[in-house]
């Protein structure tokens, strides 16, 4: 009898482990900016829960939203909030998108340390990058031509700058200004810093993680870039990075655990390592 009982117990145990070991998959799709965070989270998560299989695709925020609406993914990574149109499409299919802000993305506008300029407004930055302002004296500096340096159009850094500085609203219509022809494009944050550090008349922008003493970060609209001003949203060249789920995930589910990694100490570390501003401050 005892033997039978233990055999049954063993069977039950084996059976239950088989059930939990059945691979669960989490599919993420969307922004190339949020992609690195999602990938690092996925790596960390799969090291704790090896039975979960997570795939992260980077097809852009718009495609992420589309995948979520079509139920092709569990979590949509987005570097912008969902548009009204996308919400409508989701509602029609019975999907209820819920946003989770996992990190903040902030850019610092940098000049050479020898540059006496005190700061910019967003409008001045836009005018410099469109080529309307070409001389430092027009923004309170010496009488010298401005060397405009931008990240290459391939980068998330460029995209952030483009969306937050070059895009503005005129009479309620969102207008995208073009960066001037003469702007220099540089392939990495480090190269932007290098160019600005060695060029007295240059202006550039880099992710907050790349600031050091070789360049000078200037306040925009009177606010210095920093962890606090970016996290609180007062600094103008900052934006939240989102993960969207269908409805608020069930407590204890893998989706729930995944979209709340950013609240943990490890999550904060991961976000900081990639160069974004975490939402928590341990």
């Amino acid at each position: 009898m005892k033997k039978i009982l233990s055999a049954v117990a063993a069977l039950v145990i084996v059976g239950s482990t088989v059930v939990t070991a059945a691979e669960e998959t989490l599919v993420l799709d969307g922004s190339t900016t949020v992609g690195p965070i999602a990938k690092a989270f996925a790596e960390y998560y799969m090291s704790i829960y090896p039975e979960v299989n997570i795939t992260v695709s980077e097809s852009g925020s718009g495609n992420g939203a589309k995948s979520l609406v079509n139920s092709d993914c569990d979590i949509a990574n987005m570097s912008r909030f969902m548009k009204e149109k996308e919400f409508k499409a989701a509602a029609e299919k019975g999907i209820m998108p819920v946003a989770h802000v996992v990190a903040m993305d902030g850019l610092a506008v940098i000049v050479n340390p020898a540059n006496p300029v005190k700061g910019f407004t967003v409008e001045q930055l836009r005018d410099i990058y469109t080529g309307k302002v070409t001389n430092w004296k027009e923004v309170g500096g010496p009488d010298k031509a401005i060397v405009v340096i931008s990240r290459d159009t391939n980068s998330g850094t460029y995209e952030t700058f483009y969306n937050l500085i070059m895009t503005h609203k005129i009479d309620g219509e969102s207008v995208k200004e073009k960066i001037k022809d003469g702007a220099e494009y540089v392939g990495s944050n480090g190269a932007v810093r290098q160019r600005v550090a060695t060029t007295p008349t240059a202006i550039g922008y880099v992710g907050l993680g790349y600031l050091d003493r070789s360049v000078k970060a200037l306040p925009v609209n009177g606010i210095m870039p920093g962890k606090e001003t970016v996290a609180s949203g007062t600094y103008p060249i900052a934006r939240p990075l989102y993960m969207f789920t269908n409805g608020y995930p069930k407590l204890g589910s893998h989706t729930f655990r995944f979209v709340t990694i950013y609240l943990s100490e490890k999550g904060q570390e991961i976000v900081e390592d990639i160069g974004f501003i975490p939402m928590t401050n341990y």
Partner: protein
Amino acid sequence: MEKQINRLELTASQVLRNKILEALGNGVLFSIAALAAIAVLFIIYFIAKDALPFFQSKHLLEFFTSSSWYPTAEPVKFGALAIFAGSALVTIGSALVAIPLGVSAAVCLSDVLPFSLRQYVKPVIEILAAIPSVAYGFFALVVFAPLLQNSGGTFMATAWLVIATPVIAILSIVFADLLTTNIKDAKLRKISRTATTICLFIISALLLIFIAATLKSIQIMSGTNALNVSIILGIMALPTIVSVAEDSLQAVGREIREGSYALGATRAETLVKTILPAAKSGILAAILLGVMRALGETMVVWMASGNAAQIPTPFYNFLEPVRTLTATIAGEMGEADQSTGSMQYHVLFAMGLCLLIFCFICNLISEWVVRKERKKLGA
């Protein structure tokens, strides 16, 4: 005796086996050789296939006529004229650097330097080819660009003086000789020759100093510009030009040189009038190879040309940042959406196809020149 002969003769099956083996060996070697050719054909096919949608689109005209390059804006603009101009400017600039330097270095190696010294100099020049292009790019960005910004005028003035002084000195002596060569009286000729030489020296020295002063007063705004990459690309193209040109100068042969000396020609006359004309097809091939190297180089221009999609004002202004075809392809391929087959993806392939066609034409020209020359020599 008969038995031995029988042993040497192959049986029918052995003959068959040998034939099969031979055919097999030939086949394997042929297919390996064909692999390279097939690879080239495949590359052309796939680039052309992905470029075709762009050439069929409505953007084709602006591609060659407009210079506003906004591949991600709304509405998109694919005006690549400035990018073509950038590639042309950088290629011409590097040719201006590499051709005089490379050809004179080759002449020096083959006909001026003693053999013992040449053995050391040539490998050193060839080491230039072994430096990875990203290292050149790093140097251009971190060392050369700040140098051009901080003391670009001084740099250009010094370079001008170093290069132009000996050239102008030689030219004025040669000109003085030519001008006075018709004077019959030996004594008079000698005096007038010296006088003319001194006159020309003074004039050219004034010219030298004037140009040097003009260059020195130039303030370079941005060190990552066409001049920077032209010089670096010129240096990168040097080993190709030097080794191919030197080989062709060597191939001219000792008899021709000795014949020229025997007729009383000086070393300079032998070089300019005999050896250079005899080796000109090889030198042209060397130049074209070097130019294609500069045109196709990506990493250095991506790091140090500034990548500004503009036509400099005026168009030959080497001190402004430019953008080349190769850097555009390398820099924008990542964002161009391949899966949706966006137009930006196809326009990059169109650029690649243009580059390919240009290099192909260069190659054909050099092949044609070499073949023509060979025919002439043969006949």
